[in-house]
């Protein structure tokens, strides 16, 4: 029988599988890597992102931690200080508040305090975001707290390809990183995609244009990217051509891609799920206003969560979170300005 050349597998993979593969491949590649978090071993994680890790890598490298977020982060810092690469899972990113001091004061500043002697390859990752009826404590997008704490990378992938490539990049970057996974995307079939079998990374700090357009620019990340895509489709029908930028990493931020788009469209709407005040949408608006003022033909707008917690029942939740409808409305105002 004649040998058949190996064909790349063309199976589509979801966002969660992509993340899981990233962890497994990095654990194989780097025997100095440790994973720890609540229920990540025997259970395989609340959502299954760490499924199979304990079996393959054993309980020294895959730690079922006590319910103690501050210790999970603090011990990760110690392991990294002593040469390890650590993935620390928050069961929900909302619980990161319980380990807040260790992140912003201990971990984020270690490289700075030691004038570079110490660097900490620690990725703190966990499921984030609203629209799932998770209520106040299972819906947060609290990335702004960390963007405001110098020394942390902040990453929010929106596709399986990016999820895998960015998680690998974050684990290899050598700086501490807060990695926001969008739990509503974990098993969403519509966004499953074929991803390369070969090792690849998506470099931190590179935005991507999800859809080209000429009249208005949407800047967003995470779930909001899909809302922007839907809004762009609506707008297309109304004769407005929207460009959609997915920034992917918030720190570092690829401003060039934004300004380049703006030099074409001269109008921008920034969309994210976090509360408005001091959120990252405001930061992008501020940078645009500071640095690209002369490119603007209309006020740089933002569509964000209202300044409220995320309430539980559906009508309330949808009322406070951004919707395609709201985005379209603001985009039309901006386009007509």
């Amino acid at each position, binding site marked *: 029988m004649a040998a058949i050349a190996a064909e790349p597998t063309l199976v589509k993979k979801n966002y969660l599988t992509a993340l899981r593969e990233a962890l497994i491949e990095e654990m194989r590649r780097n025997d100095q890597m440790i994973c720890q978090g609540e229920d990540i071993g025997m259970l395989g994680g609340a959502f299954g992102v760490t499924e199979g890790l304990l079996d393959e890598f054993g309980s020294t490298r895959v730690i*079922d931690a006590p319910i103690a977020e501050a210790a999970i982060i603090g011990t990760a810092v110690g392991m990294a200080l002593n040469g390890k690469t650590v993935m620390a899972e928050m069961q929900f990113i909302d*619980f990161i508040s319980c380990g807040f001091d260790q992140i912003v004061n201990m971990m984020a500043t270690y490289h700075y305090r030691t004038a570079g002697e110490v660097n900490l390859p620690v990725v703190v990752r966990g499921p984030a975001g609203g629209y799932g009826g998770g209520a106040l404590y299972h819906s947060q997008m609290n990335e702004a707290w960390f963007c405001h704490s110098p020394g942390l990378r902040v990453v929010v992938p929106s596709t399986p390809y990016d999820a895998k490539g960015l998680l690998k990049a974050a684990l290899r970057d050598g700086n501490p990183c807060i990695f926001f996974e969008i739990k509503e995307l974990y098993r969403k079939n519509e966004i499953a995609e074929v991803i390369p079998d070969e090792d690849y990374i998506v470099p931190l700090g590179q935005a991507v244009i999800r859809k080209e357009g000429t009249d208005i620019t949407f800047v967003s990340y995470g779930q909001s990217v899909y809302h922007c895509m839907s809004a762009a489709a609506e707008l297309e029908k109304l004769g407005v051509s929207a460009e959609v930028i997915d920034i992917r990493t918030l720190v570092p931020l690829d401003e060039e891609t934004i300004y380049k788009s703006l030099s074409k469209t001269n109008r921008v709407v920034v969309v994210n799920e976090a509360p408005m005040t001091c959120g990252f949408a405001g930061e992008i608006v501020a940078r645009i206003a500071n640095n690209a003022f002369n490119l603007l033909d209309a006020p740089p707008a933002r569509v964000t969560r209202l300044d409220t917690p995320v309430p539980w029942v559906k009508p309330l939740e949808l009322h406070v979170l951004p919707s395609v409808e709201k985005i379209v409305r603001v985009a039309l105002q901006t386009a007509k300005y």
Partner: protein
Amino acid sequence: MSVIPTTGTAAFEPLAEIAESTNDSRPSQLLTKEDCLEIFNQLYLARYFDIRLIKEKKRGRLRGTLYSSHNQEAILVGALFGLKATDWISPIHRDMPAFFLKDSKFQWDDPTRSGMSIEEVCAQVWGKVDSPGRARDNWSHIGSKSKRIIHSTSMLAGTIPVAAGVVYADRMNGGDAVVLTFNGEGSTAQGIFHEAVNFAAVHKLPVVTIVENNQWAYGTPVHMGCPTPDVADRAHGYGIPGLVADGQDVFDVYDKVMAAVEHARSGKGPSIVECKTFRAYGHGDHDDDRAMKYRPSEEIEKGRTRDPIAICRESLIERGFLSGAEAEQYIAERKSASEATNDDFPPVVVEYLNRGIEFALNSPLPNAEEGAMWVFKENA
């Protein structure tokens, strides 16, 4: 029944005074027949509430995660039964029945009773506007200032400092309220547990920390989160009593909690009461299938053998409070949610919950605009 109190490391000093009570002067031995039958019915009610919710959830009529209290009812019923209406509690995710059990004694049908009504609790479970918090936060985060039930966040052990503050204020007012704060054994690893219990111990506050040790914190067994033989041993670090109760035996729970409450109310300070139990299902209903992976089914079956309803039934027969025929009337124990039917429960229990559910179904959803309301108290 075991003597009060038992602890893992028996020699710990501050327990001595609580241990003085003899077998016969145990608080539970002083309960009347009426009390005991009420307790029996409350166990049925807690069980029925849980299996009914499981059924409703399976039918797709409920949103959110259901953390079953099946097999842990004796802890809730036994701990709450001896409280005063002026006492406070802080239940968490696995304690839904606590909301209507507090202050409900002999008053299930009395609309003027001080406790939270079954209607309010069901309205919360169904996410309707007639819930006390207008369904803004999910299921188990219900509470009520006027009913003295502290609203939890999801952040485990996070209500303990709040509970300590509540009784600090009460004591300042000359009150004698005690607070029972409920927590899983896994949650005792949280830093806030330490800070709060330490604060309560320094100030000798009447805070009784109930630890429901169901052996598992989601997919993590107790020994991976707690280094001591008993979780109650954590008390030794604060110089306070750490009691261990048989969480399957409602009267043992009652005895130990009442001892701790008495200790607290008389100004002697906080304590920890660990109730040993076993989680009947997965962590939440989403986990029922996966749970088999980390917890072999034999372990689950073994864990369920000591059903709190059966154990209570035996006690009541022993004390002559139930005749053979009465005892055989309703047998809910050892039946899973899919096996049990309404006939396994006393009609008063079924009717009570039906009333709550009907109310909930008729209650509307809150208006969308409410999502933006009450971020701040508005000052005129």
